[in-house]
């Protein structure tokens, strides 16, 4: 399993960020969900950077540094693929945190230079959760193959957020508020 089920099997190198060129246009994606529960209840589920268990493809979260800036985590997906991430902003008060991917195989998620923010807000007694990401496509140079082009990377990230937010909603609403 991948974060998404789009890319074809092919041998792509593991990407190490910051060492290569990338396409000139960064993309952004935002998905939101409204949850019928109080914001602090929703925040309680997602606020621990060391616990990504609410995201369906994730089998295991291991990391260090808690919720401190520069805390790291490695997500192990159900198929064994891993994603390394680092926290760079965290505010319990604003119920928001931001992190970046420091290492991922483009077969798992076809992105480069990926950063993301998840944010919980009050929406008149309910809760709005926004998850946004900024990234370059999976292929760092001109003329990308279709599975690593802008559309594929945006579709993958959008799909990931949708899956995560819908699962979060189901989990919170099922547990009762």
């Amino acid at each position: 399993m991948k974060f998404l089920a789009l890319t074809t099997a092919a041998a792509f190198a593991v990407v190490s960020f910051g060492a290569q060129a990338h396409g000139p246009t960064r993309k952004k994606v935002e998905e939101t969900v409204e949850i019928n529960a109080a914001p602090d209840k929703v925040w309680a589920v997602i606020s621990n950077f060391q616990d990504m268990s609410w995201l369906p493809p994730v089998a295991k979260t291991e990391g260090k540094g808690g919720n401190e800036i520069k805390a790291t985590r490695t997500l192990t997906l159900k198929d064994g693929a891993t994603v390394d991430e680092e926290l760079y902003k965290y505010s319990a008060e604003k119920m928001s945190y931001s992190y970046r991917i420091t290492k991922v195989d483009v077969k798992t998620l076809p992105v480069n230079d990926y950063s993301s923010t998840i944010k919980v807000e009050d929406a008149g007694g309910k809760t709005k959760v926004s998850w946004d990401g900024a990234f370059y496509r999976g292929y760092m140079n001109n003329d990308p193959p279709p599975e690593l082009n802008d559309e594929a990377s945006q579709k993958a990230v959008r799909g990931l957020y949708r899956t995560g937010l819908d699962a979060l909603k189901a989990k919170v609403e099922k547990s009762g508020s």
Partner: protein
Amino acid sequence: MSRSGTIATRRKGRPLAGPLRLANVVLMTAWLGVVPACADEALVTAQGANALAIVDLEAGSVVGQVAIDGAPAGIALSPDRRRAYVTRPEAPGIAVVDLAARTVTATLALPGGPLGIAVNPKSGAVYVADWYGSRIFVVSPDGATLETEIQVGASPSGIAVTPDGATILVANREGDSVSIVDAAKAMEVAKIPVGRHPFGITLDAAGARAYTANVTSNDVSVIDVAARSELGRVTTGERPYVIALAGPRGFVTDQYSGTVTVFNLQSLTNVAAIEVGDHPEGIAATRDGQSLVVANWGSNTLSLIDAQTLKVTREIPVPDGPRAFGDFLR
């Protein structure tokens, strides 16, 4: 000193040495301080919206939009400030915009990945960096003809031109260097090593010092242009992108931190970090040197910063994906 950006100013500069240069800068700033503030216009490349947004900074609103396809990113202005040249990395090519008529008057297809752009303040020649290659294109002042290309370092991004039009400086992102190019000979004459992955490059009004934002070493390299050497480094926030100069200070957008790092141009020390929007990119000083304008790519806003108090004084909504990479104020 009041105008910064990725190309040189229109103001005439003469090369000065050492302390004299700084004295000159201070005097110029003081003199500019008494000039009444003019209503500046921000010309914001909105990459997601495929448009050039024209923002009245006094009114605090978008007053016009010019549709430009190809994910517009870089911008430069003609010496008379009447025309804008916009890079379209996904076209790929450039567009020429008549700013009074607010229409695209010409487009030119270019190979590779045109991103950074600057204009020679004397000849009006347009320089376009090929992000995917190791060259800059030289385009005629009317934007209609690709005249030649000049080999530089890998993944050229920001370009700056000295006020006398004689020297082009290019930040080579993958090359970790700045190319010094003789404009008349259309030839690189030196390569100066800088920090890791320099992106934006900004010259002071005299063309004496250049500053590069080194994206992955999280610092600014300060270059003595005449000596062709790096004078020093300033630590920034994460992923510094572009630098503007106003008065005695430099201002650097930190893409990942969502801040503008402020540093002292003389001591080269980092003095403050100002919270702005998400993924700030382009930054420039207004004509009067009193404000900095920051394009926040992630939050689709401009942040205006008071150059004295270092506070954000205004947020202006703009169309999706503002980059404003280049000389975007007039």
